């Protein structure tokens, strides 16, 4: 599904290398987790994959189902199937959540040559999906993320993901700021989307989320590189011992 080879990324504005040769192969239907110390480059990787400005790829490549995504505009990547659940979802005053969702869904359908959803069809689907994430009608009517609590914002990200049905879902610390019940809701939302044709890259600091969303592979990122890859037991090791041992091992 997603193939990242030797990816090097620096900041566009300053001479600062952030990703220093990332290699990652995520097969169709797989769930991979990335853990790693603060500032190691996890969010940067997610931004570079989704096309945010301000980063410069100096070497390497990233392909989605064989297509080079680094050359695409952000909206083209989205239509191709990339989705990022933001670590910090953005508030957009003046744009209604519902309008935003419908515009996004229909823009992607249009880009893929599919028929747009009618207002009625859309409403039906969104209501159903919102309900399972315990997002009430009022939150759908409000401007995008404005005045939402931290947990509500994260659930709203998952709602968008559920509506857009992407192929490659990247979740950047979607668990942070969630209470235990909300975490379960979010995990259920993610698990409901698990499918042979859909892959996940879950960035997290905590084993807890991985109890609910069982990863196939766990990676440890440090200083802009994947320094260790293993099974779910790797996440437990981090939970119990922190990164010191792993970093020591590699050094």
């Amino acid at each position, binding site marked *: 599904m997603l193939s990242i080879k030797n990816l090097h990324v620096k900041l566009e504005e300053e001479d600062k290398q952030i990703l220093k040769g990332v290699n990652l192969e995520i097969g169709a239907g797989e769930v991979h987790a990335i853990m790693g110390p603060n500032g190691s480059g996890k969010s940067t990787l997610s931004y570079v994959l989704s096309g945010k400005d301000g980063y410069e790829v100096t070497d390497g490549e990233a392909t989605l189902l064989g297509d080079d995504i680094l050359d695409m505009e952000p909206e083209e990547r989205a*239509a191709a199937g990339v989705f990022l659940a933001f670590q910090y979802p953005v508030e*957009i005053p003046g744009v209604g959540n519902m309008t935003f969702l419908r515009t996004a869904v229909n*823009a992607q359908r249009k*880009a893929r040559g599919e028929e747009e959803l009618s207002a009625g069809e859309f409403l039906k689907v969104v209501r159903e999906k919102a309900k399972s994430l315990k997002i009430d009608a009022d939150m759908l009517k409000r401007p995008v993320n404005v005045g939402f609590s931290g947990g509500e914002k994260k659930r709203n990200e998952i709602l968008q993901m559920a509506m857009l049905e992407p192929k490659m879902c990247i979740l950047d610390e979607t668990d942070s700021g969630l209470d235990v019940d909300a975490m379960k809701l979010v995990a259920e939302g993610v698990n409901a989307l698990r499918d042979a044709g859909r892959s996940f890259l879950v960035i997290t600091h905590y084993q807890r989320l991985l109890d609910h969303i069982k990863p196939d592979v766990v990676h440890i990122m440090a200083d802009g590189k994947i320094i260790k890859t293993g099974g779910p037991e790797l996440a437990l090791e981090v939970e119990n011992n922190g990164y010191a041992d792993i970093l020591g091992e590699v050094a």
Partner: protein
Amino acid sequence: MAVADVKISGAEALVARHPAPASAAKWANEARDGAMARLRAMGAPMRRDEYWRFTNPAILNADAPRHATALVTDETPVFDGFDALRIVFVDGVFDAAQSSDLSGEPHLSVEHLTDALATDIHWAKDVFGVLEAAGQTPVDRPFAALNTAVAQSGVVIRATGPVSRPVNLRYLHVAEDADAVIHHVIKVDDSATLTILENGPAAARFNKAMEIMVGDGAEFHHVRAQGRDHDRQCVSHMFARVGKEALYKSFTLTVNGVLTRNEHVIDMQGDDASAHVAGACVGEGDFHHDDTVFVTHDAERCESRQVFKKVLKSGAVGVFQGKILVKEGAQKTDGYQISQGLLLDDDAQFLAKPELEIYADDVACSHGSTCGAADETALFYLLSRGIPRAQAENMLVLAFLGEAMDEIADDDLAEEMRGRVAGWLERHSK
């Protein structure tokens, strides 16, 4: 020549370009003469005048308007979808054939300006030129005085109760060199309600004045869409006197036009009154848009809001000069003012001059002004969901204008304005 001489000869030039109106009733002649004397005393506006520093009055002062071609479009005119009483002016001249029959509309009387001014005893005596004259202090508004002195077109409207249908003043433009002067006089009686809709460019150059007396407990709603002709020039004045527990609400949408100067002078004279003035404009290239607003609180517990949003691109200039004056004794005043410019590229400019002058001690007044580019973080968020860039940018522009649009009380009218802006954005993002 000394500055004063230039201003005085400028005023003579303004007077000379318009034919003198025929003699009317004594009170009307006196009102016009008074306006003429005011104009001659204050002189024509000049760039160095305090309130013309950001806007060059030259094309408004010029002997003839700059030629402006009337826009040809197959779009339905603004407000066509509304069941309104239409009063149509073509190049500034009333057109009976295209206007509605206004007799028989409950609680409403409409007369032509010239008919009303020729009537010996008329309520308009207390409004015509009176509100304009009061609005000349402390800031000179020479084009308004000119308007009172020479206007021969316009309507005199009185609402004596709740007028259910809006009155739509529609200003069509045909001739390239049309130079129109229109003066409306409006009185909303105590507890009456009236909605005025205005649309169209009116002429190549348009000088419009409206004096509005809003009685105690009355409501006046005003929604205006200034015409889309690219080369049109306009100076407009709204003078309002707002009574006790009355509501005054005005919204203006401007797209295109080389020069637009919209002045608003609102005097809150009765306790517990509300006055909201809002404007949204979108302009590209040779576009200069100026809102100059003066709100006076002269009674207790009045509330006023000024909300102005300007979207500017490729050389467009937006100006906002807004003042809240709270007079002695106007306790518990609640005054709010916001003006914001959204610059879509590096070549646009927004100039703001917010002012507060307060002589009462128990008041809450706030004002703010911001200017900047579109929010990159918000834009990326929209793009990352697959929304194409042009569409995402347009969504953010509409969101930016939202606070001004929200000032329109009627949802359908607000939707009409949003649709018109969306249309402009779509045409301009291609």
